C-alpha cells in the first residue's frame, strides 16, 4: 500500500514520521482531515511546500475542539503565529502531542503553555482564575475562586515566589496518575476510517493496499 501517494515527497513523509508519533497511514489520514476543513485553501499536493494556514475559526469547528472551553488556548499554543491559525505542521503537532503515544513530560510542557494565558512562562494568579472560570463555566463565586487560587498556589509553589513555574507544574503532574489518560484526544473519526473501507476509497489512495 501507499508507496505511490502524491501528496508528500518521500523525504517529507519520513521527516513527519520521525518527528511525530504517527505512522505513514495516520499522517496521510490527518492530512485529509486538515484538507477537509478548507478544501479550497489547502492544495492537494504538498511537495512544493506551500505556505498555507487555516484560520482559527475553522480549526475551532473541529469536533474534538468545538465544545472544549480551552480550544482557543490549544490553537494558540500549537500555532506558529500564536493566534490560532494553523499550518499543516501545527495541526500534526497538535494531534501528535495529544495522542496516546506522547510521553507525560511532553504533555505536561504543553499543558503548562495552555494554562499560561498571558504567555509569561508562569502560571500566576490571574491565569489560575481564568483557568478556573473556564473549567467551571463561571459557576463558582468570586470568593470561592479566590480561595481556590490561593490554596493551589500554596500547595504547588515550591520556591515561594507566588506563582507556578514549569518545574512546579511538572512536579505536581507527576503525582497525578490520571493526567496522561485525560490529556488525549479521542479518535472516533479515525476509528471510523478503519472500519469503513468505503470512506478510504473516497480519499482515493492510489496504489493497492
Amino acid at each position: 500500500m501507499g508507496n505511490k501517494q502524491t501528496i508528500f515527497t518521500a523525504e517529507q513523509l519520513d521527516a513527519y514520521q520521525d518527528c511525530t508519533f504517527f505512522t505513514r497511514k495516520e499522517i496521510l489520514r490527518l492530512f485529509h482531515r486538515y484538507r477537509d476543513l478548507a478544501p479550497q485553501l489547502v492544495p492537494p499536493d504538498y511537495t512544493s511546500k506551500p505556505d498555507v494556514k487555516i484560520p482559527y475559526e475553522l480549526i475551532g469547528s473541529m469536533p474534538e475542539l468545538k465544545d472544549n472551553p480551552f480550544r482557543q488556548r490549544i490553537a494558540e499554543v500549537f500555532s506558529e503565529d500564536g493566534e490560532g491559525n494553523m499550518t499543516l505542521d501545527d495541526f500534526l503537532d497538535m494531534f501528535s502531542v495529544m495522542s496516546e503515544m506522547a510521553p507525560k513530560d511532553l504533555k505536561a510542557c504543553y499543558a503548562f503553555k495552555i494554562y499560561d494565558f498571558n504567555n509569561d512562562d508562569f502560571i500566576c494568579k490571574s491565569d489560575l482564575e481564568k483557568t478556573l472560570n473556564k473549567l467551571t463555566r463561571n459557576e463558582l463565586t468570586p470568593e470561592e475562586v479566590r480561595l481556590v487560587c490561593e490554596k493551589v498556589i500554596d500547595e504547588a509553589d515550591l520556591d515561594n515566589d507566588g506563582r507556578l513555574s514549569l518545574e512546579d507544574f511538572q512536579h505536581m503532574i507527576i503525582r497525578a496518575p490520571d493526567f496522561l489518560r485525560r490529556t488525549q484526544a479521542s479518535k472516533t473519526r479515525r476509528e471510523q476510517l478503519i472500519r469503513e473501507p468505503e470512506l478510504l476509497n473516497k480519499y482515493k489512495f492510489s496504489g493497492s493496499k
Partner: protein
Amino acid sequence: YDESSARNSFHHLLQEPDRSTRESYESIEMQDELDRGRVEVRGPDSPPPEGPYLCEYDDVFCPHTLNVLSAMPSRTIGRSRGAIISQYYNRTLKLRRKKSRPTLQNMPRSSRPSIRECDWEPGVMKDEEEERRRLLTKELQVLSSNQRVRMLQMMPLSLREKRDLHVCCNERECRNRLHEKGEIHCCSQIKYSLIKGFRHSWFEFLSFLHMLQLWHYPLKQIGGRFGTSVLSYFIFLKTLLLFSVFLFIGNLFFIVVPQAVYPPVDHHNNQTFTGLELFTGAGYFTDTVLYYGYYSNSTLTEQCSVNANSTQCAKDLSHTLPYNLPLAYIFTIGVAFFITCIALVYSMSKSFGDSYRVNSASGDLAVKVFCSWDFKVIQKRSIKVQSDNICTQLKELLADLQRKSSPMSLRKRFGKIVIEFFAWMLALGSVLGCTFAVYRCSILLLENYNDKLSQNTMLKEASLLALPLMVSSINLLMPYVYNAMRILERDESPEIQLYAAICRNLLLKMTVLGMLCYHWLVQVTRQPQKCWETFVGQELYRFVIMDFIFIILDTIFGELVWRIISETWLKSKRKPEFDIARNVLELIYGQTLAWLGVLFCPLLAGIQIIKLILIFYIKKTSLVMNCQSPRKPWRASHMTTLFITLLCFPSFLGAAVSISYTIWWMKPSEECGPFRTLTTIYESGKVWVRRLEKSNPRFYWFSWIHRHLVENPLVIFTAAGILLIVIYFHAEVVDGQRKIIRLLREQIANEGEDKKFLINKLQDSYKKINSSPGKRASRE
C-alpha cells in the same frame, strides 16, 4: 523585594488582552515609557540596553534589574528555543556518554535539574543559538536512528523546527554516505533486502494486531461519552474476560478434548434432554464432559475405549501414547491457578505503582484543578456535565477544607460517632441475618432434595434453584439498602461514604460465599450420594446462571424502567446514574464463583466467557440508552487499583484456599471422577512419582527432589523469610526517599529566598549608582 509590584510592572508590559490590538497597545506603552524615562520591553534573546537610564521611581525596578529578571533561566526555560536546544544537546551528550547521573563533585550547587541540564549563560545571542543548534545536530547524528527519532519526538519544539533539525541531520548523513567508497557487496544487498522485507511484514502484522484489539472501538465510544471512570468498569470486565479465556483454553485442550475423544467405556447417558437443564445443570448434563464425575481415572489409550475387552487392552498398551488423565486434570488446574495468581499480583503491583506516589498525600486541590479536565470527552452535553462535576468537586473540597480548619464541637463529634456506630451495627446485623438465612435455607433444601427421592424429578430439580435464587436476590437488594444508608452519613466526605458502601457490600458477598463453601464442602459431602463433586459442580453452574439472569434483571429494572419512570411520572431530566462500585463488585462475585467451580466443572470457564461477553454488550447498550455519567468524585486510577486488589485478595485468595482445601484434605468420591481410588486428590501426584521411580530407576533424583523440597515445610519457611526481608528492604528505601523529598523541598524554598535577596541587593546597587551626584548634575 515586593513580588506583586515586580509582577505588575512586568506583567502589563507582556499582557495580551486582545490579539489584534496587542501590537498597538505595546507600542503606545513603549512610547509612554520612553517619554517618562523608563525602558522598553526586552525579550530574553535581545541584547542588553546601552547606557544608563534614570531610576526615578522608588517602587519600580530599574531597567537593568528588569532585564536581568527577564533573562533568568527559570523564566525562559519553557519558551526560548535556545534554551530548549541546549537542554536537549546536553541530554543527547549524556546519552552518548551513558552516564545516568553526575558525580557529586561535578554537580553545581544550587541549581535545579532542568536548569543544570541547560548549561545556561544569561543573554545568549542569536549566533550562539546557531552554534548550539550545530552542536545538537552533530550529537543527533552520532546516535542510532531509533534513539535519534525518540529524541526528536520528545523535544517540545514546534514541528517545523524539528523538521529542520531532521533535514540537517539527514543532509550530513547523506553527505557522509556519499563519501563511502565502493558499492555494497551483493550478498549484503540480499541480506539487507531480506531484513527490510521482514521488518515491513512485521510492522504490517503489528498494525493488524492493533486493529484486532478486542472492543477497541466500543471502548473509545464509551470513554468519549462518559469519561474515564465509567470506562474503568469496562476495562475491568475485559481483564476478567482475558483471565477466563486463559483458564478455558487450558482446560479445553488438556482435559475436555482428550476425554471427549476417548469417552469412558461404561458410561451411558440414559437421560433425555429437557429445557430445564440449561438452568439447573442437572438431568441430561450430569453425565457429560461438563462435570467432574464423567472423567475416567485411568490412562487413556485408543484401543481400550472402543473395545471393552481388557486383555486386548493390556497387549496393545505399548503401541499407543498413554495420556494420564488424573495427572493432566490436577496439573492443568494447578498450573492455571498459579499463572493466574502471578498475573494478578503483577497487575496489582503495576497498578499500585501507577497510582500511588511517595508523599503524594497533599496537593489534592492543585491536582484537581489541572488534571481533572478530560480532553477525550467531546460531546457538548457530556462537557457540560463534566464542568458541573468539577465545579461540585471543587466546592466539596473547599467545604472539606473549611470543615478541617474549624473543628467540630465535642457534642457534634460524639453524635457523629454514635451515628457511625449505629450504621455499622445495622450493616453487620444485616450481613449476619442474611448469612443465617442462607444457612437455614441450604439445610432445608438439602433435606428436601434427599428425602423425596421418589417424587417427580423435574420438580425436585427445579427446587434446587431456590438457593441460588435466594442468594442472588440478597446480592441484588442489599446493596441498594446500603446505598440508601448513606443518608445517615450525610456529613461525611463523599469518598468516605463510597468506601463505606463498598466495604459493606463486599462483606456481605464474601460472608455469604464463605457460608456456601462451608455448606458444599462440609454438609453436602456428609449426604449419601453417588458423586458429591458433580453435585457441587452443578450447584456452582446454577449459581453462575442465576447471577447472570439477575444482572440482566438489574439492568432492565434498575436502569431502563427507572429512566422511563423518571421521565414520564417524575418528569425530571436526570437519568439514572451508572453505579460503578456496585457493578464491579458484582463482576468480582461472578468471577469468584467461576474460580470456585472450575475444579468440579471444567467447562465453567467457557460459560463465564459467554456470560462476560453478553454482559458487556447489555451493559453498554443500557448505558448509552439510559444512563448519565456519575456525579460523585471518582479517582479512576485509585479505584482501578482497589478493584484489582479486591479481585486478588478476598476473591482469588478465597477461591484458591477452597480449592487447596479440596485437593489436600477432602476425600474424593468412590464411584466417579478421575481420583476414585485415592484418599486425597493430591495423592495422585505422589502416586505418579512413585510409579515413575519404580518404572525407571534413573528418575530417582526426581522423586528425591519431590520428597525433600516440595513436601518439606522448612523450604516454605525459608521462602517466606526471604520474602519478608525483601519487603522490609523496600519499605526502608521508600522511607529514605520520603526524607530526601522533604530535604529537597526545604532547599528549593531556600533558593527562593536567596533569589529575592539577590534581586533586592541588585536593585539597591543600581539605585545607588543612579543617584550618585555626577549623574544628577548631567541631567540638569
